[in-house]
């Protein structure tokens, strides 16, 4: 129920505490933290710059989160995505889902990450020894996102 796009870092513990507070009696909380890697294939990365489409990103994130809320019984959720220049080990993205049903929390978190990767207007440029290059979109990310097109929400007990 909360999305943010920001240049500054986020505090996973503080966000988790807030979701926990908002989630009331939720029995399970799933968190995904995406981190800047230090390698692109076999090339070391010195930094990464995330460009985004400011007018569209929050809007698209809100749409993705609303879709997750529709599909799964979530007590609370949170999506934070950073932009700007980041270094290996830095946080990029945070997704948190809270639900009385643990499988719903897991599925919704995975759905959110998959959709972020294929729908949210962000572009990564990695700086390596051979200069900056734009990261190419992966077919595997499209495949991952496509899983959700047909799959109905599952809500086993937590």
């Amino acid at each position, binding site marked *: 129920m909360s999305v943010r796009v920001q240049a500054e870092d986020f505090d996973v513990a503080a966000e988790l505490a807030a979701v926990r507070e908002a989630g009331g009696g939720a029995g399970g909380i799933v968190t995904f933290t*995406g981190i800047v890697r230090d390698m692109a294939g076999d090339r070391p990365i010195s930094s990464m710059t995330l460009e*985004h489409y400011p007018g569209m990103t929050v809007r698209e994130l809100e749409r993705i989160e609303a879709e997750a809320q529709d599909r799964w019984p979530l007590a609370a959720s949170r999506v934070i995505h950073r932009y700007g220049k980041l270094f290996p080990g830095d946080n990029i993205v945070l997704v948190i889902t809270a639900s009385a049903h643990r499988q719903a929390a897991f599925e919704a978190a995975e759905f959110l990450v998959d959709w*972020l990767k*294929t729908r949210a207007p*962000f572009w*990564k440029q990695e700086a390596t020894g051979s200069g900056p290059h734009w990261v*190419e*979109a992966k077919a595997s990310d499209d495949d991952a996102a496509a899983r959700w097109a047909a799959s109905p929400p599952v809500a086993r007990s937590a």
Partner: protein
Amino acid sequence: MKLLYFAWLREKVGMADEQVPLPAGVTTVAGLLDWLDGRGGGHAAALKDRSAVRVAVNQEYVGPDAAVADGDEVALFPPVTGG
């Protein structure tokens, strides 16, 4: 209309955004891309592989048949790589 370019499309076009009047005869996204391609130079270079270009009209993803009108904000960008 306002045109926006992101990532390597921005670099190839050579600018982040521009304001253009709706070109005569252009009614769809595909028509707009054809017109931009016809301008040559950076625009043509950016649009060389049309399959690598994604389009949002007024901040909504659209396909090539979507309508464009004067006053629209049309963004061109490569497949996204966030997350």
